[in-house]
């Protein structure tokens, strides 16, 4: 040890001028110096004997210990506004720790090559390595937090989370190892999957909920415990594979799911946490979880909505328009499908189908553009052809009728697809039998075709009932005229004008929540009912 120390001192002394040259802003020289050290270290490493390895290790530790000087510069290069890294000592500590860890990794690799990795010594080395890496990551984590506090949150949060994730990986590996008395790196893919799966949403959401990482840490630990318990059972239930084989075989599938799950977590589930805004005071600067309850025990916004004439109108309009859609719009595609089914000329039928699908591919903006012209009050072509002056789109009831009519025009043809598909499933022998019994066209439709597509009709009816309080945005918005807005707008427009244009976020969140909850209730209720009457539901 004395020799090692004196040697390293000697190297340190020799390198001092070069090291100072770096501080005099001579980066190339410094890099060359590091490269030389690396070459020496590698050369020593390749020599036989225990002493050579220790010496090489010392050189490497020294090498990376020197490299700490680079760290502040790297940080400044990436984040110019970062606070002055006062603690170069920390950087040096981290570098020493990491280097020692890498050395142990190399040693471990060598042990494995000579087939002694499974011995107690090999395991000791591995444990030590994990501890070193873990401490280094922890130190980095703490220090970076301080350094980066002047930087834009995105950047340093990302960095911090990366470090946290590294720590997570290491912890999982370590746990998997101690739990199974197994080589830790075998579980690296699993650990990576879990950490990415877990941290990706957290990282993305951190600007919104700064506490999320703090919240995440205990959960990570809980997850690790689950992993430990899992890894103890020899065979995964229901798969017949051992834990190791299972992970080896399927980890790619979990990786495929990472991005979709992140999508649903961020854009579908995370907004649900904002639902609590419906019960809180109106403030969007911080996450609603941290806000206090609104008046009347949090129900203020609901009370306000229901005492608001404009909302009550919107509610009534939504129900009215959807009911009309259900009653008039629902049978239309069925009739059209029956018509198409009876059409005897195959080529003509295909052409008809193509043309009837056309309106589905037009957007509401375009449909409203055309409709506003064709149905204009005074000079529109429809009025002219009919010789009337019906105010199609500028009075309440005609507007509602037009809303329904245009909806049917757009989607009727498209909705026949599903009925036509159901029609092909009807057994042809039934028609034959009906024919033999002397049934005409109408009787066949009534007694064979309609019962044949009844399950499909029921399913669609349930789904439409589930949407009874739901409302589209494009359709009413594009058709709306300013003078009619207060009279015929449905809930979606009420939410848009009050929430996004009018900044009454709590009120409109409350309205949206009411809408969603009613939709779910209707869906469940209609499904239960249809099951009770012996039909197949949607789940």
């Amino acid at each position: 040890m004395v020799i090692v120390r004196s040697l390293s001192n000697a190297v340190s002394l020799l390198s001092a001028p070069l090291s100072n040259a770096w501080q005099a802003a001579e980066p190339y020289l410094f890099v060359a110096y590091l490269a030389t050290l690396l070459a020496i270290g590698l050369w020593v490493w390749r020599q036989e004997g225990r002493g050579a390895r220790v010496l090489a290790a010392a050189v490497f530790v020294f090498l990376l210990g020197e490299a700490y000087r680079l760290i502040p510069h790297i940080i400044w290069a990436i984040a110019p506004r970062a606070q002055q890294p006062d603690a170069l000592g920390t950087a040096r500590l981290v570098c020493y720790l990491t280097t020692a860890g890498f050395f142990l990794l190399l040693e471990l690799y060598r042990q494995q090559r000579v087939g002694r990795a499974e011995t107690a010594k090999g395991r000791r080395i591995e444990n030590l390595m994990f501890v070193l890496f873990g401490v280094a990551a922890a130190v980095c984590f703490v220090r970076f937090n301080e350094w980066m506090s002047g930087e834009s949150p995105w950047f340093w949060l990302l960095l911090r989370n990366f470090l946290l994730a590294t720590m997570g990986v290491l912890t999982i590996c370590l746990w998997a190892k101690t739990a199974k008395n197994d080589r830790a790196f075998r579980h690296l893919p699993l650990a990576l999957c879990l950490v990415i799966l877990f941290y990706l949403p957290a990282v993305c959401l951190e600007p919104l909920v700064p506490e999320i990482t703090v919240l995440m840490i205990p959960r990570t630990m809980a997850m690790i415990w689950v992993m430990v318990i899992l890894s103890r059972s020899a065979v995964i239930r229901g798969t017949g594979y051992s834990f190791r084989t299972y992970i080896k075989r399927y980890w790619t599938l979990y990786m495929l799911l990472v991005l979709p799950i992140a999508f649903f977590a961020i854009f579908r589930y995370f907004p649900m946490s904002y639902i609590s805004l419906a019960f809180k005071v109106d403030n969007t600067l911080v996450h609603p979880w941290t806000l206090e309850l609104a008046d009347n025990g949090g129900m203020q916004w609901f009370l306000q909505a229901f005492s608001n004439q404009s909302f009550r109108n919107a509610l009534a309009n939504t129900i009215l328009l959807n009911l009309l859609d259900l009653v008039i719009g629902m049978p239309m595609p069925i009739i059209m499908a029956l018509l198409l089914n009876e059409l005897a000329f195959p080529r003509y039928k295909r052409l008809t189908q193509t043309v009837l699908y056309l309106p589905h591919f037009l957007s509401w903006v375009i449909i409203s553009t055309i409709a506003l012209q064709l149905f204009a009050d005074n000079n529109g072509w429809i009025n002219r052809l009919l010789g009337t002056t019906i105010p199609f789109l500028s009075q309440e009831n005609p507007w509602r009728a037009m809303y329904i009519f245009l909806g049917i025009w757009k989607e009727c043809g498209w909705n026949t697809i599903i009925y036509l598909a159901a029609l092909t499933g009807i057994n042809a022998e039934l028609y034959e039998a009906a024919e033999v019994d002397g049934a005409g066209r109408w009787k066949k439709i009534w007694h064979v075709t309609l019962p044949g597509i009844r399950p499909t009709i029921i399913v669609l009816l349930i789904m439409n009932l589930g949407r009874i309080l739901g409302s589209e945005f494009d359709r009413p918005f594009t058709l709306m005229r300013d003078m009619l807005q207060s009279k015929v707008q449905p809930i979606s427009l009420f939410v848009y004008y009050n929430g996004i244009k009018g900044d009454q976020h709590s009120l409109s969140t409350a309205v949206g929540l009411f809408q969603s909850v009613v939709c779910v209730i209707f869906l469940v209720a209609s499904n239960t009912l249809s099951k009770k009457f012996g039909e197949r539901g949607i789940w």
Partner: protein
Amino acid sequence: MSIMKEAPLPVGRKIRDGMIKSTSTKIGDWIIAIICFILMLICIIPMIYVLANSLSSPEALVYNRVFLWPEGWNIDAYKTVLTGEKYLWSLGWTAILTVICTLLSITLTICASYPLIYTNLKGGKAISLFMIFTMYFSAGTIPGYLVLKGLNMLDTPYALILPNCISVFNVIIMRSFFFGVPDSLREAAEIDGAGPIRVLLKVYLPLSLPVIATLSLFYAVGRWNGFSDAQLYLSDKGKQYYPIQKLLYDLIQNSTNTSENLSAGDYNENGVSQTVQMATVMFATVPILLVYPWLQRYFVAGVTIGAVKG
């Protein structure tokens, strides 16, 4: 094989195809054909109206003389659109956006649906429940808006790309299609040493090209026709990212507002005559109308699976 080929068609099919028919049904067939023709006319007349208007002179439109046949033939409106930087940029941007969104969406949809066909995948059921739940319960407009606001995505293209990039409905369609691929193919590939990813790339994707094409069309149409997200998430600050539908909407709002205030002769006050609007409508519809008939025979599988298993 020959026996299978010569297997007779079901008799009922023959009857319905018109091989055995009485006179009265023949008349009925013609009546149905005529009704269908009228329905077709109803669907197609508005498009002809737009086409005729876009090809007419602005003066003819002011006095509303054009119905189904252009008056004062010219293609100035198309020239205006193709030379006007605003329209061309918006069209090009919408096209780029559509391509990006479609690629992203279809990739993510495959990623989301493929693992779910492994019935012994731990957590698979929970993950599909996780996805399907969002179909029935959503947080609503405002929470979604606030999240995007917090993520600094308002007035950026991300607001148009990310929030709706996976449709659960399409994931279900895709998964059902994958389920339809025989398991024996997968097992054979696995015996040959292929991992899940390789099985996906070499077995499943080539077999499911029709459904991929259909879902791509659905996603592309959704993006091309998408209006509400631009209206909700883009303000004037994000004006350069307006997709074509939003541009068109603003165009028409402006011109109706001005035409309500001004007399008919000042049609050009806003710099946008009605013919140009109509030409823009043509540009906004024609790409889709050119594509969808070719994929029509695949719709059926897509739509039915989605609705029945939803």
